[in-house]
């Protein structure tokens, strides 16, 4: 049972990541490949604050999220000049840089040794422990993220974002300061990714750079595309399917030497089939141009 709840907690964290990346990629149409870098900053910021200065995760989490948002503004800057594949490569590069810093700045991050024993959340002096407590905590943040992003995408602000996605020059001609909106979107996306990273760190109580590789960013992007770009409901579906499905394949009851590679192959096949049969994703309406 614990195992199932653990999977749900992880799913919830991925839902936050997917929702926030969907705002950037799905709603605004900016090809961003460095989302794990933002959760990395959120995770390390609140973990280090908690371990070195005894800062409560309740304070560390928003600080981590804000640090991620600052990085978001930095990553957003190239998006003003680059489009499509070029932007994807630039954000990819920034993802690699953040990963390398986490790995090599041993004095602060302890590098590949990681940070063990990160304190968890506590409520009124009682330490939250066990998967159930974290399930509730993560669920609260999932709903918070969903609620805020829903407000954002349904607002006139969200309409402008879709306008930028559909036709940047036309959005310009409509008097929209496209550059400003792009930066804001990157910051909002990074903020929520920072929250996800911080939740992950305090839940698992151990982080190392390997949790925030560029491959991780690609997985999150897959969840966005799989669930449906420009669909918040799709982000739930995408994250849930891609976290839970590989776990289900564990129960096929094959010898482990066959099971592991087969799992990867079935997973890959599933992705190919879905993209052929439903390129807009499970719940999406928008396709990549």
């Amino acid at each position, binding site marked *: 049972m614990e195992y199932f709840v653990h999977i749900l907690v992880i799913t919830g964290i991925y839902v936050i990541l997917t929702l926030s990346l969907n705002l950037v990629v799905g709603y605004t149409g900016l090809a961003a490949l460095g989302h794990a870098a933002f959760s990395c900053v959120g995770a390390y910021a609140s973990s280090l604050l908690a371990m070195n200065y005894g800062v409560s995760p309740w304070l560390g989490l928003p600080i981590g999220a804000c640090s991620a948002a600052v990085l978001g503004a930095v990553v957003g800057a190239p998006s003003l000049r680059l489009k499509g594949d070029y932007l994807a490569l630039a954000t990819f590069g920034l993802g690699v840089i953040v990963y390398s810093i986490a790995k090599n700045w041993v004095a602060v991050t302890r590098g590949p040794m990681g940070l063990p024993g990160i304190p968890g959340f506590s409520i009124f002096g009682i330490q939250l422990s066990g998967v159930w407590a974290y399930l509730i905590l993560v669920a609260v943040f999932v709903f918070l993220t969903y609620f805020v992003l829903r407000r954002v995408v349904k607002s*006139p602000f969200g*309409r*402008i974002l*879709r*306008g930028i996605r*559909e*036709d*940047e*020059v*036309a*959005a*310009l*001609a*409509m*008097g*929209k*300061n496209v550059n400003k909106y792009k930066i804001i979107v990157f910051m909002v996306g990074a903020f929520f990714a920072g929250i996800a990273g911080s939740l992950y760190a305090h839940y698992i109580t151990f982080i190392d750079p390997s949790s925030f590789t560029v491959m991780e960013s690609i997985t999150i992007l897959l969840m966005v595309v799989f669930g449906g770009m420009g669909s918040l409901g799709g982000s739930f579906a995408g994250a849930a399917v891609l976290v839970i499905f590989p776990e289900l394949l564990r129960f096929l009851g094959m010898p482990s030497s066959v099971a592991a590679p087969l799992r990867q192959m079935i997973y890959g096949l599933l992705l190919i089939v879905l993209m052929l049969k439903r390129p807009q994703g499970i719940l999406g*309406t*928008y396709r990549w141009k």
Partner: protein
Amino acid sequence: MLLEVKNLMARYGAVMALKDISFDVGEGEIVAMIGPNGAGKSTALNAISGVLEATDGSIDSGQILFEGKNIRGLRTDELVAEGISLVPEGRRVFPTMTVLENLQMGAYKRNDKAAIQQDIESVLSLLPQLKERMKQKAGTLSTGEQQMLAMGRALMLKPKLLLADEPSLGLSPNYLELVFDKLVEINKNGTSILLVEQNASEALEIAHRGYVFSIGEIVLEDTGKNLLRDEKVKKSFLGGL
């Protein structure tokens, strides 16, 4: 003068697109810029609207004055605030957004719902073709309807000067007539129009004045009527009408 352009030089990378051109648009005028492909008409329009920089071009020198104020180098959104709005070439409506949402995109920096609704009503009374299409996605409209929408969207910005880039491009003859009629009507309601057109005869018919472009230069300037009768213009652009 509402708009004055003096000695404008612009380029795309190494390619000189405008070689020292000057023109102007008066209050309440329709001014047409005609000429063959690649003569620099659209470049001139993009230079005014600030879209040039966003499409990899740049202005080398020259002045662009709007109501006497230098607007060269302003961002597009700042130009919109000054009262200049663009109907881009090829319409460029937001295809997966509804007609209503497209019009709302034009509601510039305002939150006053009642006033926005009123503006939408007045655009619809000018362009009734859009009325039954409000909930439809803009990408599903016909080319002519999309042109109406692009014009309506630009009007939502309440411009003093409307820049129209090739509004007749790809339109059926019926819609072509309609689009030019609507431009005249918009002009009568008090908006000055700077029109770039390949369809020279239609454009010159509604224009008060016109400029003829050729390879980055203005080679002729006169009233619309005189240009229509001009032998050289007839030969070059009007197919010997």
